[in-house]
């Protein structure tokens, strides 16, 4: 048995796939690409696949992950190509690495996500009356859970985006809640999931941030 971790992208029109739709799509693409998938036993065998934290309908993801179990070792370069030949527009495989048996599964590993929210001019002008600083302070009062989970934020009004670093998998901390809070704070409804891109998923431990392919480590 070999475990692999796939890094992929979901963007453009594919951002409108739900997590479930994306899972089915990836699974069928893997089958078409002849990956030697390992299946569960029993009457209703399923490939042993596990996915990172779900992306909402409309949200794009630049570095998303899934773990797969395979019956044998494969050439990553070759199989990325096979897979990309079978993927829909907007979804593409970026990297495939073999995991060490001791490596943590995705569910345990990922506890941090970085989102980038595009701001249109309407928001930028609304925000002049209330600063981002004030907005986030207010937000933290009204959504205490969110405050806990929100590790960093940074707004770039010139480029027109807002970036946030959020914990994953904690109660009350979700992109949905954040958008709701921001919309309420600014007094709009225009911040929709389709303006959001998840730019990365990470593991945070002792102030150190690592990506799921173990390629980079940063200080928080």
């Amino acid at each position, binding site marked *: 048995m070999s475990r692999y971790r796939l890094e992929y992208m979901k963007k453009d029109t*594919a951002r*409108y796939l739900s997590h479930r*739709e994306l899972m089915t799509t990836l699974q069928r693409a893997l089958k078409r690409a002849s990956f030697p998938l390992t299946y569960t036993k029993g009457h209703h065998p399923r490939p042993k696949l596990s996915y990172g934290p779900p992306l909402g309908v409309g949200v794009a993801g630049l570095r998303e992950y899934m773990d797969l179990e395979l019956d044998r070792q494969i050439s990553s370069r070759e199989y990325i190509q096979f897979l990309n030949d079978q993927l829909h527009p907007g979804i593409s495989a970026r990297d495939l690495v073999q995991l060490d048996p001791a490596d943590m599964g995705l569910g345990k590993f990922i506890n941090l996500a970085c989102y980038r929210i595009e701001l249109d001019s309407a928001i930028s002008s609304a925000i002049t009356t209330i600063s981002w600083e004030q907005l986030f302070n207010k937000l933290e009062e009204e959504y205490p859970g969110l405050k806990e989970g929100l590790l960093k934020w940074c707004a770039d009004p010139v480029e027109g985006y807002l970036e946030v670093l959020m914990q994953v998998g904690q109660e009350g901390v979700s992109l949905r809640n954040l958008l709701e809070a921001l919309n309420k704070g600014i007094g709009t409804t225009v911040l929709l*999931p389709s303006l959001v891109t998840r730019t990365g998923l990470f593991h945070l431990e002792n102030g150190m941030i690592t990506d799921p392919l173990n390629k980079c480590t940063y200080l928080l």
Partner: protein
Amino acid sequence: MTIEQLLIEKILPRVRKPAQYLGTEWNSVHKDFDAVPVRMVFAFPDLYEVGMSHLGLQILYGLVNQRENCLMERAFAPAVDMEAELRRAGLPLFSLESHRPLKDFDIIGFTLQYELTFSNVLNMLDLAGLPLRSADRQDDQPLVIAGGPAAYNPEPLAPFIDAFLIGEGEEAVLEILDLVGEVKGGKGRAFRSQLLERLVEIPGVYVPSYYRAEYTEQGRFKGIKPIHPKAPERVQRRVVRDLDTAYFPLSQLVPLSEAVHERGMLEIFRGCTRGCRFCQAGVIYRPVRERKPETLLAAAREIIKNTGFEEISLISLSSLDYGALDQLLPQLTQGCEATRTGISLPSLRVDSFSVKTAQGLPGRRTSVTFAPEAGTQRLRDVINKGVTEEDLFKAVEAAFDAGWFAVKLYFMVGLPTETIDDLKGIADLVNEVVQIGKSYSRGKKRPRVTVSASSFVPKAHTPFQWEGQNSRDLLKNKHEYVRELVKRSRAEYNWHSIDTSFLEACFARGDRKLADVLEAAYQKGCRFDGWSEHFRFSLWMESFQELGLDPVDYAEKSYSYDEALPWEVIDAGVSRDFLIEEHQRALAGKTSPDCRTSRCGKCGVCSSLKVANCLVKGRGR
């Protein structure tokens, strides 16, 4: 902004399940729209999740797109939230592949799966920006055609559709596309009036504007007469003679947004000659044409490879009747092993053989469904459903033995000649099934038995076409009676909405006058009538009333043999004499044999359509 940009940036963020509007399904075909001379959009008047499970779409989509000079794109009835967004933004209904307005196509082709999608047909025409009635559309607007089982009584839609195609489409659709290409020449658009003059020459094409519906002074239907020199007296349905060599799609569309059925489809044969007397499919798809096992095995391999589906389904009207199951299934099971592809049978015959067969197949096991249809042997003989009590009990036992823990039973209420004994009979059968189940209890848990009861709807071209439907009150009493009895055995009883079945009956045997009712109901807001959450019966009743037509008369009327019937302008191949004889045998409680395994029943299909049963194992005559 183009439609595509508007859609992606403004509309998709606001609708539910947006993936259904992307058009980027695996195996979808995207051609250079402007470079292809003949363009058709397949319009499915129901939701994506229903339409994407439809075999006819997959066949025609693959077939037409194989041709270099043609393209076929898809449009489904937009969900209610999407319709609101389109109307608000002033956007027309568009095709999924190139996001072009339906108006840009040469042909808009609707499939009519059943009567309760008719209001959606009108809605899609309106959303496309076209006048509803053919007569109001300009000569250079797209040709609107329709086919499918509900086209076998085209009259209620006659004023809205330019031409109907009756019967199987594999050959006729290409003839229609060729003709459109020829008439169009290098021009931007063929004129509909010119097209219809030529289309009427294609066998199977019914051009309703070339006919006049005649009535007596009392307003009774008298007949439909051709008023155009080229229009035939009756339009005979199309049928594909050799299914084994006919086109079959191997690169089937893989739904992006969840569909009702997500599986590869392998049509193992077409047609059913069991002869259930209420069943329209049993008439309009005759004769039986089986594909060879080698053809099917090769097709299955390709379908699995090209789609990655988790399951492949053996499609037909009664798959367990396939003559070479013993050859097909072991090899297919073996071929599915590496990819862990499941194999499913859409319906089981009521006998232990089918259960044992299904048991051996790889794949998920949820519940097993049997359709005895009626509660007593007498009534099962009336409907010619060749099933005995013993068959059912053995099948159920075999199912529990095989480890199934849920059984679903289908019955029909309101069948001709039905008495209270027949209703009691349903409850008795169900009770017996529950008793059998008891010995298979797991601890305190007993197997689940669910009864699903529909109301009989008389359908055109069947031996029961002369029979009226029971009144709504009577149907309600009958269902309630059976439910009370069934509840005592602790089985679950579900019944289909009676109002819905009533409306279905009106349209199933309706005439051209119903077009006005349909239009009025549509204008009042009727859509998705087959969906209980959208069905608005009172608006339909208002529409009937406003137009001075009595829906009860349509649904409940019993016709005599000498009356003309509105759908008789369509020739389904079976002779009128055969239908009459079958009707009389029904009333006498006499069964008729299946010509697949027994002697010819002289239905007339083979001689009039110049076809024959095509069975892989052959059969002595």
